[in-house]
């Protein structure tokens, strides 16, 4: 995952200043502007300029060195602020320590320290961190409401989830002898897909657990389109919804709270619309994807050429080609949050997840002949420092 790793030396060197920008996805997913590192650098520069007059204490420059050096392994490995928490805390005493040793009056040093605190507080007040991560608020018990299933009385039940969020937080509310698997995972190691296959094969009664889609519900049950979409997710694992059996509907105030987080009145009104579907599954089934024929060699060549051009963003071997609805094809690169599209009309585009729109690269022929290509150093939505970026 290179989401927060700098693309250039300049971006790496400027990270302490970039962290002060009030944008999300600079060094962590949320907007968490932090002026303290920039302040620490300016103060350290001031201390160096007053080298002879500073009342040096060994601990302060060593702590500064530790914090500065920590940026190197951090930026090499992730650049993610959640993995930099110790340094995010240490910078407080560091700033205080540098100010304390400056050859200034006590009043002015207190002014500098208080000023830094006030400025950082003001920055946070303008970008409050509360609710930044939350999908829903845990207010009263239970932590996440879901009604109990009739399957809970049965033994040897395997609950299968297919959504990218596993919703495993409801699992402890079910009987402890139930088995759980998220089949949208797998593939991190070459052995995992086989383990998923064996787990599914050796399961008892198989029940799909999936959050309902309120707009795609018919008398509480998934519509035909939703059933088809679920079968497309289940099929590669030899699973399918049992056509003759309805899904059990488990009302969930927890799910409702996700969509109505900002309005208690709405939560009350909408609660009945949100539920988990528990759908009996059949196994094994012979799955044949309802897709067009294989992707043409020319389209695959476009993907290969672009992967060769920008391996950092389109890592060879990371993505598989999938058909999209217009008859074109898509490769998705989760490690770099990128997508490559080759549309049915021959247009080739890429999209970085933070960009508003896909970016046109060119047409198939232009890419194969080399007359059009991706500017690897100018990925829209990603390239440059926060104040330079275009979305």
């Amino acid at each position, binding site marked *: 995952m290179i989401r927060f790793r700098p693309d250039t030396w300049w971006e790496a060197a400027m990270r302490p200043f970039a962290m002060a920008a009030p944008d999300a996805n600079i060094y962590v997913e*949320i907007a968490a502007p*932090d002026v303290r590192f920039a302040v620490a650098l300016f103060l350290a520069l001031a201390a160096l300029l007053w080298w002879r007059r500073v009342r040096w*204490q060994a*601990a302060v420059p*060593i*702590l500064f*060195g*530790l914090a500065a*050096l*920590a940026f190197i*392994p951090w930026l090499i*490995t992730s650049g993610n*602020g*959640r*993995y*930099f*928490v*110790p*340094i*995010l*805390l240490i*910078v*407080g*005493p*560091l*700033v*205080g*320590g540098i100010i304390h040793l400056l050859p200034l009056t006590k009043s002015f040093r*207190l002014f500098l*320290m*208080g000023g830094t*605190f006030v400025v950082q507080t003001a920055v*946070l007040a303008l970008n409050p*961190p509360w609710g*930044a*991560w*939350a*999908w829903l*608020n*845990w*207010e009263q018990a239970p*932590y*996440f409401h879901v009604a109990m299933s009739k399957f809970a009385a049965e033994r040897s039940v395997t609950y299968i989830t297919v959504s990218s*969020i*596993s919703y*495993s*937080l409801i*699992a*402890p509310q079910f009987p402890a002898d139930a*088995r*759980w*698997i*998220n089949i949208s*995972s797998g593939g*991190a*190691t070459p052995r*995992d897909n086989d*383990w*998923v296959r064996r*787990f599914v094969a050796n399961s008892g009664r198989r029940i799909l657990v999936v959050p309902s889609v309120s707009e795609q519900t018919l008398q509480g049950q998934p519509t035909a389109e939703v059933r088809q979409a679920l079968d497309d997710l289940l099929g590669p694992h030899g699973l399918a919804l049992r056509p003759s059996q309805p899904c059990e509907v488990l009302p969930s105030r927890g799910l409702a709270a996700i969509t109505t987080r900002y309005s208690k009145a709405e939560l009350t009104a909408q609660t009945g619309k949100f539920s988990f579907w528990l759908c009996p599954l059949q196994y094994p089934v012979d799955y044949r994807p309802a897709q067009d024929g294989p992707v043409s060699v020319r389209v695959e060549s476009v993907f290969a050429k672009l992967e060769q051009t920008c391996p950092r963003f389109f890592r060879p071997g990371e993505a598989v080609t999938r058909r999209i609805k217009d008859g074109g094809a898509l490769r998705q690169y989760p490690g770099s949050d990128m997508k490559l599209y080759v549309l049915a009309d021959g247009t080739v585009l890429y999209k970085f997840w933070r960009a508003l729109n896909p970016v046109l690269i060119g047409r198939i022929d232009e890419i194969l002949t080399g007359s059009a290509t991706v500017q690897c150093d100018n990925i829209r939505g990603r390239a440059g420092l926060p104040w330079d970026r275009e979305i």
Partner: protein
Amino acid sequence: MGRRADHLATWVVSREWVLIVIAGALALGSIPIALGHIGLSWDGLNHHIYLGWSAEHNRFDNDYLAASYQAYTFPYLYWPVYRLALAGASGITAGIVLAMIHVMAVPAIWLLARTCIPGSSWFDLTMRWLAVALAFMSGVVLSFFDSTANDLSAAIPLLWSVALAFQPWDAHRPRRLRPHRALLLSGFLAGVSVAFKLSNGPIAILLPLVWIAQPGTLRDRLSLVLQACVLSAVGFAACYGYWGVQLWTHFGNPIYPFYDSWFEPVRALAGWSR
């Protein structure tokens, strides 16, 4: 008046760590109370509660990837939030309990502040308290007081490790905390922090640079670094060992699913198969 103020400053300094922990507990514990809840994030829905569950009840024989691959990260720090959730606690109660766990970071930050800002005057005292307060004025850090995430609690041993590594320069260090002892404890806690969260590793590997910067002969310092590194390994093994053995037993990789191919020869050598 001046004498009385000095007397009060001396009184505060002599009880400073207790006072700052109380102040920290009040300030940080008030966040979930003021919010009236804590948040459940994508990760909260996906794996925080499940991990606490699997910390208490071994789920290896029942489940596979139940919380995707996050199901195999070190689970024990999520046990408190799982217990609170299943016990029927409100979000505020859970938030206060988690905040009190996070308060363990406060004295470590204060120790560092005392090392960098020594002195017992009102000026020194104010600078130190502002430094500790400034430490927590991070959007990322504060966001964890409205969350079930363990990033802050996993950072606590590393903070203590850093604070102890700087103890030899602390003018107010208690006599019983000898530099040698402080550095060995620093080493142990560095290992614990990596066990808590592998992503602490890239910061923890820098600590030998601090250990070797201590006053003393080069020979003594090298010996100290070696001992601290050994204790880091001990701390890691003591903390991560049980979970690592579980992962090895079930997946043939103690840090599954990371670096799986690296363990291929070890699996072959040990005759591991599944």
